[in-house]
């Protein structure tokens, strides 16, 4: 799950991570009031969408840029009125853009030096790790490749947590001195409390800045939360903005389906995440392009299959469907009955290839064959991929 910049700021305030003061606004009037509260003549108005590249984006109303500097509350109000309720297109949103429902009004920050700071769960050691660099504000992967000596790694003992001496050690490695040495150490310890306290899988501050007057501040942040832990963080779950998500993925999650839209034309419906990925792969191997990842889990009930078909068919690009179920314990005939019922209910008009394997598979195949619906049965995975690719090629000729 991702969150907005203003929500990240709220978490920074809650955990004591120093950052520039800011307020969220949903109307131009709120923006004006927020700017007044900040009592600064150095303001920035930022459109709140999850996609990056906001500064260089363009609104569909012609207004250029999702990030603007200004000096007065009146200007903040004026700028907000051009962003709120408008659609912002950036290189990450795709041509359809994203509706801006909120803006962040924050005090502007002058930068003397930029750093990079992140905490994440390191899979190799199964423990948190702090990553810091003197090269901030740029792509950290490039830094890692070109100047690996400028990146510092500090592993954290999972049961002890980040110790103050470790924070000081990193402050020293980054070259902080005097008041900033202390400011940075405090910021890092607060960030670790946030990382653990919110069950993040990653929190990245890029850049962390030192201002000309010597303040150490988190300027831009990216959070990844562990979805498995959201049950114990209702406050973070409440930050979810479904407007920012693919509506098909939101719909799928209501039915316990795990769906991810891709840009091909052969949809697939599979039980199990690994097999679902492998099914996408074999479609591509057979010369087709997968339209989605879809894991129906262990069950594949009629209602789930029916919901899955609806979500799949909402994508106008989809020209054929491959169902691949390894019904190990589930009765394949029950699954086949569900597929037939769902196909009938939807009035399926595009090619459907079904590969069933497992318990009571013969009866399942008979049910498919006797359904009176044009369902192609496949012998195995390779056969299924070949058949759906051929059917879609024939249909789109």
């Amino acid at each position, binding site marked *: 799950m991702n969150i907005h910049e203003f929500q990240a700021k709220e978490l920074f305030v809650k955990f004591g991570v120093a950052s520039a003061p800011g307020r969220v606004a949903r109307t131009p009037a709120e923006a004006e009031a927020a700017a007044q509260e900040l009592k600064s003549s150095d303001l920035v108005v930022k459109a709140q969408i999850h996609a990056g590249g906001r500064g260089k984006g363009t609104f569909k109303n012609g207004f250029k840029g999702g990030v603007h500097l200004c000096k007065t509350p009146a200007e903040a109000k004026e700028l907000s009125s051009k962003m709120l309720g408008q659609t912002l297109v950036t290189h990450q949103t795709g041509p359809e853009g994203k509706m801006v429902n909120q803006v962040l009004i924050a005090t502007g920050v002058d930068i003397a030096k930029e750093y990079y700071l992140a905490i994440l769960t390191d899979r190799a050691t199964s423990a948190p790790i702090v990553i810091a660099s003197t090269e901030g504000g740029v792509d950290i992967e490039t830094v890692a490749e070109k100047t690996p000596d400028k990146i510092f790694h500090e592993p954290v003992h999972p049961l002890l947590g980040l110790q103050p001496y470790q924070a000081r050690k990193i402050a020293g490695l980054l070259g902080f001195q005097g008041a900033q040495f202390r400011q940075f150490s405090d910021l890092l310890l607060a960030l670790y409390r946030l990382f653990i306290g919110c069950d993040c899988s990653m929190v990245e501050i890029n850049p962390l800045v030192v201002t000309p007057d010597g303040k150490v501040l988190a300027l831009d942040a990216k959070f990844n939360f562990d979805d498995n832990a959201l049950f114990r963080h209702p406050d973070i779950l409440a930050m979810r903005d479904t407007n920012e998500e693919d509506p098909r993925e939101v719909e799928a999650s209501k039915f316990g389906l795990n769906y991810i839209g891709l840009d091909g034309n052969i949809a697939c419906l599979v039980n199990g995440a690994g097999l679902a*990925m492998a099914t996408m792969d074999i479609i591509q191997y057979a010369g087709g392009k997968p339209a989605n990842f879809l894991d129906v889990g262990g069950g594949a009930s009629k209602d789930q299959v029916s919901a899955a078909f609806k979500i799949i068919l909402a994508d106008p690009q989809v020209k054929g469907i491959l169902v691949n179920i390894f019904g190990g314990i589930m009765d394949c005939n029950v699954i086949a009955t569900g597929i037939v019922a769902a196909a009938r209910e939807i009035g399926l008009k595009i090619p459907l290839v079904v590969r069933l394997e497992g318990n009571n598979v013969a009866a399942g195949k008979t049910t498919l064959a006797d359904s009176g619906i044009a369902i192609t049965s496949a012998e195995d995975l390779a056969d299924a991929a070949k058949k759906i690719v051929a059917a879609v090629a024939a249909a789109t000729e």
Partner: protein
Amino acid sequence: MSILVDSNTRILVQGITGDFGSRHAKLSLDYGTKVVAGVTPGKGGQTFEHGSFKVPIFDTVSDAAKQTGATVSVIFVPPPFAADGILEAVDAGLALVVCITEGIPVNDMVKVKAAMQGSKTRLIGPNCPGVVTPGTGKDSHGGCRIGISPGYIHKRGNVGVVSRSGTLTYEAVWQLTRRGFGQSTCVGIGGDPVNGTSHLDALQMFNDDPETEAIIMIGEIGGDAEERAAAWAKDHCQKPIAAFIAGATAPPGRRMGHAGAIVSGGKGTARGKIDALHEAGIAVADTPAVMAETLIKRWKG
């Protein structure tokens, strides 16, 4: 022989009275597995019944192990309580804990792994289908089935299977069985980013197991467990290995169902893993349809 478990292994089930746990405890009993105890706090003294089977239920893992001689636990408890369940089984001194539960917070697992340092317990999972050592009866009856795999697709034999994915494991096992090749043990290590047993651990055990003659290793995008296993196998594994990596078509930055299946920062790609496997001399199946075929070709020529 086999690895981890055999037909004499005595199993206890944590969460035996839950919907999921009871269904699979029954299937294991039907498979001929020695399910000797169940644990549900507050239901100690009751009995779990299935046909002629009567399995005593205990309040704690420690009691269950002491009174029934169980050495292995399988965990079906819901995600918020699963980490505690693992730690309880470790505290009871069990040899092996297999955690089926999907959706355990990663930070819980990070702490569990740290707390398990120095203990004699091996953890498999979480978010895994479990472990099967097939039996010699009809449809592999009489084996040890721990978890949620369909038992009947197995056949007793000499191929070790290790995988991060449930249904892909079934796929590989079924391909082997249909071609007449049985399995020594099949291990689902799970799809979470922090887990107990790695591909590498499983390869080492298979390499040391006299019954295992060849190995199928199934991986997927995310992390570098497959690369590390490959690097070890290159110089140390004396048995033929075939591998398959799922997720070549997965978009970067997206979690593909499994919590651990994600390409991030250009790391953990299928391409990188496949290259590492080739580099180690491991045969890589081009598609999931030819996992068994690829192994048999490498193994039998």
